């Protein structure tokens, strides 16, 4: 089902792109935004950015199976991370699926090349997991919506040009039926963006976005009026496919770092590390096997309920891997800034893209058929 030649071609392209000392100095290069920008742009040009999409949109019209192999190869080779994952990962699939011809024409290529960054205007102070409870209000006034409200945890808004802004357009409707997705130009009058200092080193800074009577043209609706819930679910679903691969590669890196810690004179403690290591190796392999199995079912037109475990399993495994790395390092972990970052970053994985508690509700209600609480 896969084409080894294709993977070889991709691998050769990546080798050619990366600096010669990339792997020796990965710890520095991972923060190198210019390298990451250049990588995204080059991947777009070469058709590796969105492998299933057409050439003009950074792809090669590949099948899902080949695309997954490319993503796994990229992950295993530690290809530079996209500097603005919300753009290609979440906004782009939404624009491609729901956008008008004009929107696609104006927005998609600059997004995919990385020239224009995107923020996701979803969470609000009173609407986190309960996304459909959002309060930002958009009122139609002729050719524009007038928008008032407040978004928070809006990653990279201060560096972004655009925002997929979810706002309430019908306060009378059931709460998830009265939401629309508007494409907000963050340079519009009335938009105030306040970055929020992060608990640890990060290049994915949160912002608060305050919207004070902001005018957004009606032509900037993404999808239908009051159809924002579908746009959000569909965009996040695309992200969900990518999250497990991202988790998986981080897990591999963590496992290798545990392996490199030379364990100690304390047999009992080493034994505990080995046991946890074995369990985590099972998690990592299960993640990959389940990702493949879900894809295989999807390609054959069968239901793929197992896909819903990927986010929950991947994020928890990631956290356990870095906690084990810290345990195996003993007191040396205290002075290890990289490890601090990994542990902090891993903790975010059970929160973004739907918390673990929400994931469990989804599994219990949609897959097991248990009643809503």
């Amino acid at each position: 089902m896969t084409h080894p030649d294709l993977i070889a071609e991709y691998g050769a392209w990546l080798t050619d792109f990366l600096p010669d000392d990339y792997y020796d100095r990965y710890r520095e290069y991972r923060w190198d935004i210019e390298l990451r920008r250049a990588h995204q742009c080059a991947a777009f040009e070469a058709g590796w950015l969105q492998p299933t999409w057409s050439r003009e949109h950074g792809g090669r019209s590949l099948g899902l199976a080949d695309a997954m192999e490319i993503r796994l190869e990229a992950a295993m080779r530690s290809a530079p991370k996209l500097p603005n994952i919300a753009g290609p990962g979440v906004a782009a699939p939404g624009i491609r699926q729901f956008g008008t011809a004009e929107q696609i024409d104006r927005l998609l290529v600059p997004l995919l090349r990385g020239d224009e960054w995107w923020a996701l205007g979803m969470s609000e102070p009173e609407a986190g997991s309960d996304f459909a409870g959002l309060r930002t209000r958009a009122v139609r006034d002729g050719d524009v919506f007038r928008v008032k409200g407040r978004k928070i945890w809006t990653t990279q808004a201060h560096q972004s040009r655009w925002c997929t802004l979810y706002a309430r357009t019908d306060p009378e409707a059931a709460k998830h039926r009265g939401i629309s997705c508007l494409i907000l130009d963050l340079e519009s009058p009335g938009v105030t963006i306040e970055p929020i200092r992060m608990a640890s080193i990060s290049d994915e800074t949160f912002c608060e976005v305050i919207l004070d009577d902001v005018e957004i043209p009606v032509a900037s609706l993404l999808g239908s009026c009051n159809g924002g819930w579908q746009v959000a679910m569909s965009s996040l679903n695309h992200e969900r496919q990518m999250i497990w691969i991202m988790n998986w590669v981080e897990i591999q890196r963590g496992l290798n770092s545990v392996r490199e810690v030379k364990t100690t004179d304390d047999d009992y403690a080493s034994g505990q590390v080995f046991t946890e290591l074995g369990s985590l190796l099972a998690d990592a392999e299960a993640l990959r096997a389940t990702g493949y199995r879900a894809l295989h079912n999807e390609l054959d037109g069968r239901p793929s309920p197992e896909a819903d475990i990927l986010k929950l399993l991947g994020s928890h495994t990631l956290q356990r891997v870095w906690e084990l790395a810290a345990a195996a390092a003993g007191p040396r972990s205290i002075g290890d800034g990289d490890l601090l970052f990994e542990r902090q970053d891993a903790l975010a994985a059970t929160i973004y893209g739907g918390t673990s508690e929400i994931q469990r509700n989804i599994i219990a209600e949609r897959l097991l058929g248990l009643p809503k609480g």
Partner: protein
Amino acid sequence: MDVGLNSGQLALRDSVRDVLRTECPPAVARQAMIDPQRWRTLWKTVVDLGWAELAVPGADGDDTFGRLDLIVVLEECGAAIAPIPLLSSVGMAAGVLRLAGAAAADVLGAIGSGAVAALAVHPPGCRLPGVPTTLQHGRVQGRAVAVPGLARAELIVTLASSADGPVAAVVRVDDGVTVHEAECTDPAQPVADVEIDAEPVAVAPVDLDSAFATPLVAAAADLVGVAGAVLDRAVEHAKTRQQFDKPIGAFQGIKHALADNYVALERARGLTYAAAARLDDSATPPPAAWNAAALAKAAAGEAAVGCARTAVQVHGALAQTWEHDIHLYLRHAWQGAATLGDSRALYHAVGRRFAGAAT
């Protein structure tokens, strides 16, 4: 890497499931606990249907039935907690002989026709399976504990150390074989200890990693089946049992425990299918096959015990009664989880190998 079931395997699964639904409701396991002969009628049905033939690889070396076919059937038998020696004989004992070549062909043929064999590979005092016997001067000698299905077996497959390295050896349950039956967690699947001092009827050199891989993945499939079935029972109860004016499954305390069980189940199932696919691929090096099979068994043991324990909690006091089925699943899960290496011991072994600390 293709780790799903193909349409033929899905059809096989459905046909096995249909047979077991009528022939083997959970009450059969309860009957088998108190009637030592109860397994025979079901076993005859299963053998007549040809399921035991899954033991036999093809004559030209490439398997007629792959491990994936085998695990599909074993998973369904686990789900039905069928009190038959399909896992112990076809999955485990024949599994060791699968790569043993012509020397084991007659024995495999007999197992494929319904002769019951048991796998004796637990040396006393060890958590992981190993080599419990020696082969010297033409005799197999040694002791093994917790041999699954021994009371029903006419043949014993064991591993022996010999001057020429490890071998798989087959002995008849006859003179020179002393069976020590004991109480066991799951009397529907009785295990026993054995002392062997007998001439083997077949001997074949084996690679130990390869020898254990198929039995481990077979045991994993059985436990995945148990996990799925007992989770279904818990979910059904959680949907119907009302407290505080709503089904208890509406409470997150129950809901999230069951969701975590589902993750454990699919984790184990994914590992088991992937391991079986790797074993069917002759390019897989034996240590990689052993790792994959060991992780699958470890995960499946965790899933089965975890799902059964939650099911007990969800059912409350009901689950403590003989008449309710949950203890049947729980016993099967506990016993299976302790066979061929408990989960912690298997994880430890794989983790140790990964860390490069193994000798």
